[in-house]
């Protein structure tokens, strides 16, 4: 009992800390954005109205509340630009995440099966690119992919192509950039689950008559699902909102939602519409998150 009293107070503080963090850095800003998304654009400082002025008195505040409307959300649904941007963002994110899983899984699996002393080295190799600025790495890709860049020089030298291929400002270039940038986020959680898995389980499967591909499908892959889920979420969610990579590497004819947001905010100075787009994006991203959580909960319940 006495030990409980000693630990109770710090433990309670520790439990509260994440909530304080969430309120300060997520809920409060979210409330701001939500409020702006319900406002109308205006040529003013700040560039929207109504503005809540707590000093103006009760009536003014009521009027301000009454001026809020969901027109911006209606606009999002009616204007093709936004619908297309959402669809494109999801398409790009799904494709890129699938590519990342296909490329990242064998790498993570190979790492997990390395001798222990080499696993650390492999891990460092995966993380090392983070030591360079993200922007510099993307600019390096521009260099590699441009008309007389490294890739075309190699292809020409090997006589694989007759003339330089257009890489830059294509979807291919964008996918290269996304896969390159997000690969560690896919590999690391996969590696963590695969390294924890006992290789003897694969031996048991093979002892019981499973061919190598059956061993993988029936034992290795199902047991790595938590890592797959974590890796997919870690990649999918930020890719949906990705702005820099498509802006620098892809063509400008179809925009992702991140780019559309940028345009609304900085080119059109339409903060309310941009805020509404951001809120809608958040809702779109909540769906896979909730699905994942539901799945995890079901797995937990099955394990009981």
């Amino acid at each position, binding site marked *: 009992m006495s030990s409980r009293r000693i630990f109770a107070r710090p433990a309670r503080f520790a439990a509260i800390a994440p909530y304080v963090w969430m309120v300060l850095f997520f809920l409060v800003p979210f409330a701001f954005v939500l409020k702006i998304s319900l406002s109308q654009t205006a040529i003013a400082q700040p560039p929207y109205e109504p503005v809540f002025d707590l000093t103006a008195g009760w009536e003014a505040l009521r009027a301000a509340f009454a001026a809020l409307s969901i027109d911006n959300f209606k606009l999002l649904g009616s204007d093709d630009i936004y619908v297309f941007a959402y669809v494109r963002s999801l398409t790009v994110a799904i494709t890129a995440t699938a590519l990342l899983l296909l490329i990242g899984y064998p790498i993570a699996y190979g790492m997990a099966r390395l001798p222990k002393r080499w696993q650390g080295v492999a891990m460092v190799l995966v993380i090392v690119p983070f030591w360079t600025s993200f922007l510099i790495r993307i600019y390096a890709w521009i260099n590699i992919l441009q008309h007389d860049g490294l890739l075309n020089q190699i292809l020409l030298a090997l006589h694989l192509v007759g003339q330089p291929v257009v890489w830059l400002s294509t979807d291919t270039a964008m996918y290269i950039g996304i896969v390159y940038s997000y690969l560690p986020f896919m590999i690391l959680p996969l590696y963590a689950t695969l390294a924890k898995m006992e290789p003897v389980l694969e031996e*048991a499967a*093979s002892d019981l*008559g499973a061919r190598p591909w059956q061993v993988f499908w029936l034992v290795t892959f199902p047991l790595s699902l938590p890592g797959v889920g974590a890796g997919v979420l870690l990649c999918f969610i930020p890719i949906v909102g990705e702005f820099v990579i498509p802006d620098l590497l892809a063509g400008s004819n179809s925009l992702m939602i991140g780019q559309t947001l940028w345009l609304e905010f900085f080119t059109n100075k339409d903060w309310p519409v941009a805020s509404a787009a951001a809120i809608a994006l958040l809702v779109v991203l909540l769906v896979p998150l909730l699905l994942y959580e539901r799945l995890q909960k079901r797995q937990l319940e099955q394990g*009981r």
Partner: protein
Amino acid sequence: MAEELPGTNVAAGAAAGDAYPAAGQALLRIEGVAKSFGTFRAVDGVSLDIRAGEFFALLGPSGCGKTTLLRMLAGFEAPDEGRILLGGKDIAQALPHERPINMMFQNYALFPHLSVRDNIAFGLKRAGMARAEISARVAEMVALVKLEGLEKRKPDQLSGGQRQRVALARALARRPQLLLLDEPLAALDKKLRENTQGELMELQRRLGMTFIIVTHDQEEAMTMASRIGVMKSGKLAQVAPPRELYEAPRSRWIAEFVGDINLFDAESRLRDGHRLVVGTRDAGPLVVAEPREPVGEARFSVAIRPEKVKLSRRGPVSEAGHEAAINRLDGVVADICYLGGTTTYKIKLDTGGMLQASVVNSARIDVDAYSLSQHVVAWFTPDDCVVLPS
């Protein structure tokens, strides 16, 4: 699939014993098998015949190569040299899934994402059995290892003993020609282990299957196996039934590894009919029966198991005892170790050496028990001694 090898009877009918070679025939022949890891020779030229229906134990200290040998039988390692013949067919290079051999793993290696039922059915599904047949076989296995009612549980919802049963059922489900058991009882506590030993033996007899068990526990090997192969540094040191291994060990190392033993180095010898009079520094002259293979001029030791040593206050009691007990050693009790059923006395001999004697506590109230520093006479017959080359 398993069908590729002849003799696999995964999908065979009801009677388990039907398709096995007649008992006594060599089912498995290991010929000069060797395996190295880098410069370390884990298994170094092992040859061994396992008869059908046999319960064979591979016994040895950790690192002796017994697990590597077992893994080569299962197919997880390929031998560098030698052949492994199962029913006359060389399987040394066959992959694990191609062998009609199943293994029960140390710590069981149950699939954590599958239920008890699906764990047991895993191998049956891979063999392409029909659904109804699989259900019937799983039910049969569940009944065999007494797991009724737990079919839907996941491995982490089972106790250690239950997990062990699932592992056994899973390995038996395909009706392998040969079942390998890698330290199958190591994770169980003592009482459960003893019960399970009995159950395993009973099961093996009933199914008429061939079992090879790997263990470092000599009591376990002695209890369960009909023959034991003792391994040391990658080689088979001796292959014998438990009694022979214990009473007629082939070397000093085996004698010391299997059970407790008193050893006295021989310094001189003298033949006296069928007997040898051996001079030892620690225990003086000892009369021993001449070994079947004459020792010649080689160095050797005289060995005597502690339970063969009798103790008394004044030496052998009966006339017949006098006759047989040519070896009489005087000493004082230096240490007493009470073990319940037996008591082990350490006797400091007047000749300088130490002698262990194990005495059965046959009476509950033993007024004659020896106490520390008490003078005692230890005696034993020449036939109780074993001559071992050093």
